[in-house]
């Protein structure tokens, strides 16, 4: 009997070379084993390397270090027996439903009769009966993703990789597809033996997975592993379900210990000018402060509650909460957000007063903003080129992150009226239109 695990990853690392010759680490020290009959969730925010990890497992990319093996054999290129479902469905718009599903079997050069029989079976299983001759453009999002599932299942894979398969769908459709998938899985109707699901939706992870690996960013790594012992079908309102969701929120809002490995450009950790800043508009910041300040929260809110109240995913909510924390408008810990006195004052102020408070917090607690302002103040012309700051930032972060960080600074600086920015000439200045 073969005792090798379905999938085994050891010390996997992935780094991308940068223009200046250094490396950008996106994934470090990842160890993972998947046994038969498991659904494993990779949960994390965007930029935590979970999708990169999925592509390594799929054989679409090569690790910089470490080993990946499937049924004991190393993964070198796309392996037979590992199939993938994509976030944007990735079905070919010029092929019909049937042709899309049959494509993977044609690539395996199966006899035409077998292709037909197996494709129809897969289409049938996934609930696409009657749609065989339709083109993807005629289908709704949910039906398109069903094609994505049928195409993956038709090759009878052992492992199914799912890259945020429900995140491009509306809430109701996503729920239907999840339940249908779980029904097929628990009834053992699908030919698959293990599933890896990438998601940034905490409830989805708790609903579907047997085991959840929580990912951290910069570099992407596994922070913690959480087992989900609840029997299927699970109920979202079940207290034990809620407790698990709450626990994951706590894990994900835990502040990294000082000097933790890889804290180089950790968001807000160092708080030097080298921190990567998220693009969060001042409207979102005001909106969250107002919501938390108002009843029923009155200044303190449970993040899972606020997320479901505001229909925000963690990728939307966390950056806002963390920005508030950075500017000392709020404290985020233990899955809760608590407004500071400044935050409460802001929420109750009028527009001009808000701008004054925001400017003060921005210049006091966001070093890059203070830096830009200082440079402008020191120069007789009060003008500085964007590229000047961009180059400084690129010592600390990727070009893309530097661009995003400067955009955030521009947007906050404008709101605070701390400085102005001229996009035409790509310069910062102190002018205000009169």
């Amino acid at each position, binding site marked *: 009997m073969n005792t090798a695990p379905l999938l085994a990853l050891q010390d996997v690392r992935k780094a991308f070379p940068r223009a200046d010759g250094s490396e950008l680490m996106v994934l470090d020290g990842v160890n993972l084993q998947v046994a038969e009959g498991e659904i494993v969730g990779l949960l994390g925010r965007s930029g935590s390397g979970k999708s990169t990890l999925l592509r390594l497992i799929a054989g*679409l990319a090569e690790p910089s270090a470490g080993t990946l093996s499937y049924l004991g054999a190393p993964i070198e290129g796309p392996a037979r027996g590992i199939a993938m479902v994509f976030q944007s469905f990735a079905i070919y718009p010029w092929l019909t439903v049937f042709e899309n599903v049959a494509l993977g079997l044609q690539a395996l050069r199966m006899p035409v009769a077998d292709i037909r029989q197996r494709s129809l079976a897969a289409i049938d299983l996934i609930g696409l009966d009657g749609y065989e001759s339709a083109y993807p453009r005629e289908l709704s999002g949910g039906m398109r993703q069903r094609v994505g599932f049928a195409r993956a299942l038709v090759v009878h894979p052992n492992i199914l990789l799912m890259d945020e398969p429900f995140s491009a769908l509306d809430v109701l459709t996503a729920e239907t597809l999840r339940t249908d998938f779980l029904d097929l899985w628990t009834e053992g109707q699908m030919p698959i033996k293990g599933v890896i699901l990438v998601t940034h939706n905490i409830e989805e992870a708790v609903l579907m997975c047997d085991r959840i690996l929580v990912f951290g960013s910069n570099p992407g790594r596994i922070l913690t592993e959480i087992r989900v012992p609840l029997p299927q079908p699970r109920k979202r309102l079940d207290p034990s379900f809620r407790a698990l969701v709450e626990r994951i929120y706590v894990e994900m809002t835990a502040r990294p210990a000082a000097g933790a490995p890889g804290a180089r450009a950790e968001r807000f950790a160092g708080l030097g000018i080298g921190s990567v800043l998220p693009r969060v508009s001042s409207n979102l910041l005001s909106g969250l402060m107002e919501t938390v300040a108002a009843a029923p929260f009155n200044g303190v809110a449970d993040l899972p509650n606020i997320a479901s109240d505001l229909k925000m995913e963690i990728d939307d909510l966390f950056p806002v909460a963390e920005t508030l924390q950075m500017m000392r408008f709020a404290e985020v810990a233990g899955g809760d957000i608590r407004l500071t006195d400044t935050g409460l004052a802001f929420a109750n102020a009028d527009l001009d007063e808000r701008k004054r408070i925001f400017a003060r917090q921005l210049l006091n607690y966001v070093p890059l903003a203070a830096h830009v302002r200082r440079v402008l103040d020191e120069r007789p012309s009060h003008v500085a080129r964007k590229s000047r700051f961009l180059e400084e930032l690129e010592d600390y972060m990727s070009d893309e992150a530097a661009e995003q960080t400067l955009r955030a600074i521009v947007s906050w600086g404008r709101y605070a009226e701390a400085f102005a920015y001229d996009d035409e000439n790509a310069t910062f200045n102190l002018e205000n239109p009169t």
Partner: protein
Amino acid sequence: MTHRSEPFAFVRDLATRWDVIAIVIVIGLIAFLGEASRGLLEPLAKLEATPLSLDPARLPFYAARTTLRMFAALALSLLFTFTYATWAARSPRAGRLLVPILDVLQSVPILGFISITVVFFMSLAPGRVLGAEFAAIFAIFTSQAWNMAFSFYQSLRTVPSELTEAAASFHLSPWMRFWQLDVPFALPGLIWNTMMSMSGGWFFVVASESISVGHTSVALPGVGSYIALAIAERNLPAIGWAILAMLVVILLYDQLLFRPLVVWVDGLRFEQEPGGRPPRSWALTVMRRSRLVSGITAAFYAGVRWTSWAMPVDPSAPRAESKPVRHADTLWFAVVFVLVALAVWHIAQSLFARTSISEALTVSGLALLTMLRVTVLIALASLVWVPIGIWVGLRPRVSGLVQPIAQFMAAFPANLLFPLAIYGIVTWKLNPDVWLSPLMVLGTQWYILFNVIAGASAIPGELRYAADNLQVRGWLWWSKVALPAVFPYYVTGAITASGGSWNASIVAEVANWGRTQVRAHGLGAYIADATAAGDFHRIILGISTMSLCVVAINRFFWRPLYYYAERRFRLA
């Protein structure tokens, strides 16, 4: 229809050293071909012109021959596109050189080049007429291939990564991937560019059928030769017949090929653009009913399946990324170095060694004159067509009527109309330096018109309602609403028009009516004269100068303007 090709989407930098290398290689190639052809000219001097007849009854036959040449060139262009563009897109190393070369080739004035290729191909082919046919087909090929290859290259580079990943994870072989993923994805853009290129091609097929280089003159049976003969014999009715014949040919081409294809590929689009009426074609509807299209599609896919069966399996499963190989890099750079060295040697030999300072100055002066002409005329054409285009584009019913006509006019070879203008200039004794100039934009101004119409019809309804609601009218409306909204489209059209006008200058600056010659001063006339005299050294000098002018204007004027337009005025 709101299709719009993106002229500079392939490279963002203004100029890199690869551009310089590309320019050197292309000019070196022209110099080499020119030098090689010069020696071949003499034995061909005795070639007789094929006898032609001005009998209108012969015109259908001539038109058919002309059309046949078009399609032969189209097949060649497709072959070139599938290989060259795929190579450039798959190998980043090669792409760095191949893409700039394509860009420079696009700027080479095709009409000036015909003389060189005629001699070259006639020396290759055993039967002389076959050589001339090759040369004509090659001329059309050069007017189509670069543009199509660009479009295909651009599509290959923008295939969504999830689609390629899906192909890799389902083990599609490279051959299968090419036909099942790359080609269908690129097809809408490619078809549109092919149609635009073919429109330009009619101009060149007409110009390339009747060629004389030095003492060698060739007249292939075709509409172009027919009209050349009519000019020589001052036969105005015959010119009218030729124009009529061409109108019919282009109408058939438009209705039976262009429109059905455009409608058909619209269904293949990856993104479905919201709004806008889908294009329609009666011919496609008929063909669909006759099951012709589905038959062809089925046969195509059967072919793909069969060939992918027959193709050997790639032993190593393809990776989405590959590591650069060191010695392949070295080899590649060695090849590029040798190419550049050879090119420099040829340029030095045929250009610098024989060009006196005064000759260089004369040519530069003439280039400035032609540049002035192109600039003034594009400006004038813009003044006329931009307001008209906006007016038309904002009225769906009118634009539904005018847009096909504008596209049709762009396809119609304007050089067929030249004799009429020249007849006028000769009759009324007008100043040719002024009055020959409009001929340069006669065929190219339509690109401005139909791009502006497309831009104006793409303005979102709400933006227009907002302007109405705020009672924005008059100049304020033009300057703040209409002109900015169509600006990116205008730039796209103007780039095409400007490039085409440079090319047309070669046939527009010197014109004959019987034995009377009307001539303007300019680089186009210089090249035309050199061609007539069979002076290869001056041909090469003229072509190189014109190519450099076009490349420089593109790099330092149009490209920055294009990016500015994309950044400032693009409606997201």
